[in-house]
């Protein structure tokens, strides 16, 4: 973590909570947790409300599909922490490790629905090029995604284009797979609150 305040600048209660989490999970506290817990009224609380609504609120995209979108956006942004974190959540949500890694490594041949494939392509372009045109959106509608599904996916793109930038700027530590597995289990049980 590049800023010391984000690593060790939390209040006594939060530090005690971190110690408890480490004791119970036997894993380090993830840097994303340290970030949202630092002066949470500024960023952590209002951002968590957005993230919870986007990732767990009503949508015709499943939780697994939304987590795959998060991982795909992170991979497009070359954010190692976010890619590993949300791949772990998506794999657990799908109950299928291979389909997630296939979608991330070769979307055109991955075993996903056409609306999802087309939506992921759109999110990739938006993340890479920072904008979309009408043809990009028309292609997703033509593949069978609804307007609401596109709006929901764009909101996911908003969230993970924020978090990925923060992970890179603050240099989140990338722990081993066990820590991401523990994080995925927690996220699927408790959400982003």
């Amino acid at each position, binding site marked *: 973590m590049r800023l010391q305040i984000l690593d060790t600048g939390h209040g006594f209660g939060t530090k005690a909570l971190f110690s408890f989490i480490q004791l119970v999970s036997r894993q380090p506290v993830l840097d994303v947790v340290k970030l949202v817990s630092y002066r949470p009224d500024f960023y952590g609380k209002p951002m968590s409300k*957005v993230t919870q*609504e986007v990732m767990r*609120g009503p949508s015709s995209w499943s939780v697994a599909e939304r987590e795959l979108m998060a991982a795909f956006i992170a991979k497009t942004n070359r954010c190692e922490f976010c890619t590993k974190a949300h791949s772990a959540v998506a794999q657990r949500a799908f109950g299928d490790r291979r389909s997630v890694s296939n979608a991330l490594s070769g979307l055109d041949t991955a075993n996903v629905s056409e609306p999802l494939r087309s939506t992921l392509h759109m999110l990739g372009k*938006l993340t890479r090029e920072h904008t979309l045109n009408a043809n990009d959106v028309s292609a997703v509608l033509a593949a069978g995604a609804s307007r609401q599904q596109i*709006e929901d996916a764009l*909101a996911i793109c908003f969230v993970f284009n924020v978090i990925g*930038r923060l992970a890179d700027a603050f240099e989140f530590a990338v722990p081993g797979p066990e820590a991401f597995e523990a994080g995925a289990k927690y996220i699927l049980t408790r959400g982003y609150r």
Partner: protein
Amino acid sequence: MSNITEARKALVARILEGAGQASRADRQAAFHLSSTAGPPAALAEKVAHDPAGISDEDIAVVRASGISEDQVFEIVVCAAIGQASRQYDAALAALETVIGKE
């Protein structure tokens, strides 16, 4: 996802208009990339367009210009949310263009 619009508005209002250790003007500048001069502007630009390329040196240069860690934290958050917001708004506008033609 009916609550997203309101939740996003609340987030943006909080980081730009609420209390902070960086001035509101500096947070607005980072969000909108509206300043081109000085180390904070350079960091905000990198957060927006080359986040994977940010180095310890980029942060050190901003700190050496007299900006505290808390101010760096706020500036980086504002720059990240600003860039993601511009992308989101551009994509929604493209969607509206298509839907409007149907």
